């Protein structure tokens, strides 16, 4: 009898401990391609996500004074097997509560389906843009602060049409991202009355692209659209085309926009243009300043990375729990209206509002507005290469 009473007392004690939710250490996986095809972009995305984590952790207002740490995992951007293993480690060995990432569409899909969904862990990707991710079976666990490429195809077409381009040659990196984007560009551009002379894939990581360039050149076209990666085949195809005099103007989709490209290729790239997700909302400028103060650049997808981490943490606060199963239902609530608008650097304020039972509308660095299956509606920054630098034309 005595032991039963003891048992009961112990149980009551335990439950009371659990329900008052003492401060804990929340872990957030930062699951990006720190090495591989887009490492030069991730160099800014990783610190951006970690900045949001630090901001929330140091606010003291998060889940009764809980702290947050980021745990890095490497997607490699292209190698699904490595990415799945890294996600497995984050979830089962590091016990992360949710994941910021992955970055490239193929590895993100693989990690989501093989690891995150079976383990019930929320993933918020800052940069996976494949249209296939809109319809993937995700049990409501997957969100992204980047728009789907289905939307990017429309933007590409608008920009090309405004500039009076009648025909394009199209090359894409042979994976989910490249294929999805090129399909979307082709469909949209042809529907708008443009002519696509050739759609040719290129493999990343090869030494020689002269055959690809030869085929593209033979098909011709006013502009070459390169739906590839900046550190990989995409750059090599552009260099090869310029060397051979095949094309003079290039359209650069999101994976190709970045300062290293004009620096590597030089003056010949001047006059080429493109667009990548970006916004002129007040948040973007604030974020750029914050990035500068913390020693990184507000490069492509860096704002989205910050927003991804912030969304997860705010959803945790709204749910009052760091559990993925609970926070997934709050992501839409914190991201969209109604509520007070939250810009970068105001995470502490947002946490306080949520704690007091108020509502927020997270705007963040990339003007987040979630639609459909949990993806950003999308704002794009149209750029043009001038004097070996990426310059803004306008936002759309």
């Amino acid at each position, binding site marked *: 009898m005595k032991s039963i009473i003891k048992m009961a007392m112990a149980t009551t004690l335990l439950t009371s401990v659990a329900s008052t939710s003492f401060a804990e250490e929340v872990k957030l996986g930062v699951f990006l391609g720190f*090495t591989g095809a887009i490492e030069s972009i991730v160099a800014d995305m990783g610190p951006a996500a970690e900045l949001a984590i630090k901001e929330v952790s140091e606010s003291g207002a998060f889940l009764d004074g809980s702290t947050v740490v980021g745990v890095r995992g490497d997607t490699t951007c292209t190698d699904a097997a490595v990415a799945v293993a890294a996600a497995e480690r984050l979830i089962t060995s590091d016990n992360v509560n949710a994941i910021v990432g992955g970055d490239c569409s193929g590895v993100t899909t693989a990690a989501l389906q093989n690891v995150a969904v079976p383990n019930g862990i929320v993933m918020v990707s800052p940069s996976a843009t494949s249209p296939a991710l809109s319809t993937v079976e995700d049990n409501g666990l997957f969100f992204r602060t980047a728009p789907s490429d289905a939307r990017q195809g429309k933007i590409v077409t608008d920009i090309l049409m405004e500039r009076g381009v009648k025909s394009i040659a199209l090359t894409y990196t*042979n994976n989910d991202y490249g294929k999805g984007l090129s399909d979307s560009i082709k469909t949209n551009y042809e529907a708008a009355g443009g002519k696509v002379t*050739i759609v*040719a*894939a*290129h*493999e990343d*990581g*090869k*030494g*020689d692209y*002269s*055959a*690809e*360039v*030869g*085929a593209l*050149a*033979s*098909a*011709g076209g006013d502009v070459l659209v390169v739906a590839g990666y900046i*550190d990989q085949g995409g750059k*090599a195809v552009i260099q090869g085309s310029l*060397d*051979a*005099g095949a094309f003079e103007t290039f359209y650069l989709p999101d994976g190709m926009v970045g300062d290293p490209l004009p620096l*590597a290729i030089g003056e010949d790239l001047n006059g080429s243009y493109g667009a990548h997700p970006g916004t002129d909302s007040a948040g973007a400028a604030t974020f750029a300043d914050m990035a500068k103060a913390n020693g990184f650049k507000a490069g492509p997808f860096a704002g989205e990375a910050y927003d991804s981490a912030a969304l997860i943490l705010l959803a945790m606060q709204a749910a009052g729990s760091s559990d993925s199963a609970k926070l997934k239902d709050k992501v839409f609530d914190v991201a969209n209206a109604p509520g007070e608008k939250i810009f970068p650097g105001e995470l502490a304020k947002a946490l306080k509002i949520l704690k007091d039972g108020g509502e927020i509308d997270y705007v963040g660095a990339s003007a987040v507005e979630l639609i459909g299956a949990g993806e950003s509606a999308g704002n794009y920054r149209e750029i043009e290469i001038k004097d070996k630098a990426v310059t803004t034309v306008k936002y759309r």
Partner: protein
Amino acid sequence: MEFLNAMAILANYVIVPGLAYGSQLALGALGVTLVYGVLRFSNFAHGETMSMGAMFAILFLWLFKSMGVSIAPLPTVLLALVPAIICAAVYILITDRVVYRFYRIQKAVPTILVVVSTGIMFVTNGLIRFVIGPDDRSIGDGARFVMKAREFKNWTGLDVGIAIKTSQVITVITAVVLVVALFWFLEKTKTGKSMRAYADNENLALLSGIDPEKVVRITWLLVAVLATVAGTLYGLDKSYKPFTFLQLLLPIFASAIIGGIGSPLGAIVGGFIVAFSEILITFAFKGFFTRLVPDDFAPEGLVQLLSTDYKFAVSFAILVIVLIIMPTGIFKGRTL
């Protein structure tokens, strides 16, 4: 005029890159063929040896750059070739002393040596990544072009340009010089003759007093020269990326086998055959024919035999065809 334009297209996209690529393959295949001829095994580590040599060249290039040495308008990396060859030779001789020699004394069958060379390939690959990392590096400096496409257009008035890169010219010239020197060495010098004797009949060569270890050493030294030059030229022409040398192994072996493995002349011919077939079979001839035939007959499609995705399949296909039809290759090498 249209005829000239069509020819310019062919020259720009097929002939110029084909010549440069063919020279690179020929140099690689020569190395493979030498090892096969003299040491009697297929050296799968050859691609990585090329990469290793190129890596040394890059390390010395950085050293020279930091010292402010330059031989503009030629790329400085040419100067770095000499110390790089010495380093690569030392590395190869160490692998021979530590690994291959053991199996040679045991008179191991060629199949075992192939597996051994695969092991060396992986170790070398790891060392390279350890030292220089897997990144893509551009190693050219000095003048990039001998003739720019735009200059050619202005000069001739054609609407298709021909671009000739400095690296392509250097590649072809170096390959010719190296091949001539190699042939002179094999045909005219006493050491070269003893190598050929050893390759022809090992026992008879031993009876005539030829030192086998010396022959082996000389062979590896030649391989070091060929591999370093081939690897560096490939890196200079495209860009240096350690991963790509593994992919290069297939076309290199195809070149050696097509020409007749063990035959140096065959390696060169094989290199150009593989290079031109890869480019011609995957080239889209639309632009070429559009300019040659009257407008009404201009092709709608791309006139491309195979999509560029299948570039490497071309080497495979040629390899299979040659092995079926004439297993000894064009210049009557050995059968595999």
